[in-house]
């Protein structure tokens, strides 16, 4: 069992054909991905797209139905990986009757690598009194305590499920700052699931986009960006742009490229494409799209062809894009 995970310790997460089924429905299907250690990875997707399932499986809370998942070259939920992974669940579970200080002691008693100073610094940054009971804290404050607990564990891989969802902007930026400072200082790999795209702008350098339980975009953020082009031009008569399913009305010179999404505004046509080999002819203005524009393009058009640049484990067959 363990031998198949050996050999890729440089990858924080490697998934191969990973799937999870709850009774009749698949929460996650055929996910193959690889996250190099030290990356900050954004996991994007609508609710129910499989983000939380992936994180819970990596955290050792769920067993996969199909495929395999390894962390730092080892099978998940072994005693070694348990120490190296910290997880903050979406609903930020804590023990309501414990005080903040007791919650930190909980972390200290159960984790040999515990760093009390880090956890206390995080809580000081956001003014949470350590004597307060968890049940008296607001949702946002509880999230901070959960993050402090995860950071205090001094894990190599942080799995954070919607960590900033209930934070006010000030606390959000402070928590994000603390998180990134810790990650930079210790080379921690961070995986953050979110549906707030702006939250991770300029912070993440890796990207996974999920839709309906499948991986639709995966790879280095820059590589994804450079693989796309935003093309703007005048719409010609008789063309019906915006038919996202098949884009039949698109100009023929675009047909050679993989079209993610086409939108018409008045007489102007804006098309997000993954350029093929050939140069684009005609009067088109081409520029590199922002990450947010790419993500919105894929989110608006669920039938856009997936782009998977992670490649998975080196010996696995390349997944067709």
């Amino acid at each position: 069992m363990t031998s198949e995970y050996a050999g890729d310790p440089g990858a924080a997460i490697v998934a191969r054909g990973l799937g999870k089924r709850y009774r009749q429905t698949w929460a996650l299907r055929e996910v193959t991905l690889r996250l190099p250690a030290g990356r900050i990875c954004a996991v994007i997707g609508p609710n129910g797209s499989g983000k939380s399932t992936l994180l819970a499986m990596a955290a050792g809370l769920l067993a996969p139905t199909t495929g395999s998942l390894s962390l730092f070259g080892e099978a998940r939920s072994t005693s070694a990986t348990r120490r190296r992974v910290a997880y903050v669940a979406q609903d930020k579970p804590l023990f309501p009757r414990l005080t903040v200080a007791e919650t930190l002691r909980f972390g200290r008693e159960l984790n040999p690598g515990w760093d009390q100073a880090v956890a206390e610094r995080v809580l000081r940054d956001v003014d949470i009194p350590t004597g307060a009971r968890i049940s008296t804290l607001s949702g946002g404050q509880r999230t901070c305590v959960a993050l402090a607990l995860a950071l205090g564990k001094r894990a190599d891989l942080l799995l954070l499920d919607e960590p900033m969802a209930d934070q006010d902007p000030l606390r959000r930026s402070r928590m994000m700052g603390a998180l990134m400072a810790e990650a930079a200082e210790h080379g921690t790999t961070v995986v953050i699931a979110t549906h707030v795209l702006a939250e991770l702008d300029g912070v993440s350098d890796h990207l996974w986009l999920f839709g309906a339980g499948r991986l639709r975009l995966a790879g280095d953020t820059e590589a994804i960006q450079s693989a796309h082009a935003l093309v703007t031009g005048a719409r010609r008569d008789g063309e019906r742009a915006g038919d996202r399913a098949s884009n039949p009305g698109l100009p023929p010179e675009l047909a050679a490229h993989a079209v993610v999404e086409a939108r018409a505004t008045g007489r102007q046509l804006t098309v997000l494409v993954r350029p093929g080999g050939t140069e684009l002819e005609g009067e088109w203005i081409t520029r590199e799209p922002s990450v947010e524009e790419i993500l919105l393009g894929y989110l608006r058009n669920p039938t856009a062809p997936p782009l998977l640049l992670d490649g998975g484990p080196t010996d696995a067959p390349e997944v067709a894009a």
Partner: protein
Amino acid sequence: MKGLTWVVWRQHRATAWTVLALTAMAACCVGYWFHQQYAFQQDHGIAGCDILLPTCHGQRLTDGSLADVVRVLDTDYRDVLVRAGYAMLALPPLLAVFLGAPLFARDFESGSHRLALTQSVSPRRWMAAKLAFAVSLTLVVSLVLTALYGWWWHSTWRDFGDLVWDTPTPFLTAGPAGVALAMLAVVVAAAVGLVLRRTLPAMVISLAISGGMLYLLRAWRPAEHLWPLSTARSTPTHYPDLPRYTLHERLRYETSSGERISDRVCPDLSVEANLARCLREHDVVSSLVEYHPASAYWPTQWVLAGICLTVAAALVAGCLWWVGRRTA
């Protein structure tokens, strides 16, 4: 305290203190009644008298003031002893509902199990620590109460003459079987909570299961089945002499070939000569009574305790195996 021990204690200490406080109160009640009865018997000079016998310390029990004293003992104090025993029967269900059922169900219901299971300790160790806590608390509580009540019961039950030892109390309240039953009830309730993952349904189902166990044990009378019966012999027409406080007596006849036959082969023969002739015709050489002497109480207790603890241990092993498999 350190590590998991501290974590489990901190999470459940309110329950633990409540249970220990209630136990102390119950122990005080039992101790108080025990002392009251003992003092009453001492004060009136009837300690060690069997009130079913006609005499006590040379006086006839039907005479005068001594008879009144004995009547008070038989009504008031006998009731307290028996009712306290029935209250003691509530111990396994109470511990199951308030200690066993919420042990895992509350964590799963609130989602806090995900916090515990993503720290550096393995799920198996986490579960083992919680079970160890619940089982040790149960052991302390049931040991204290059972030992105290057992001391009272065993020191006085013969005074009342008509009390038997295989009824639910004292059989499940005054010996090791009671302690083992409480531990089994708690482990079953914890497993139910683990499966149902909801506190209230787990409490209801655990109550039903532990109540059902008591009912079945009452109906099945474990004392009769868990230890071989003793036998006493006599001549065909004489009933063998038996010690007092025996149970489950059954008269059989033994033929010259050693075969044991039913006592119904010669029914309703009140004239001894006719009975003797009938028995001779059936080739009966001796009458024989199978019975449980009062001394069978302890071995049957230990056998039942052993069964309960074996089932509980198997269930604990099953829970640990299951949690390891679910997350691996």
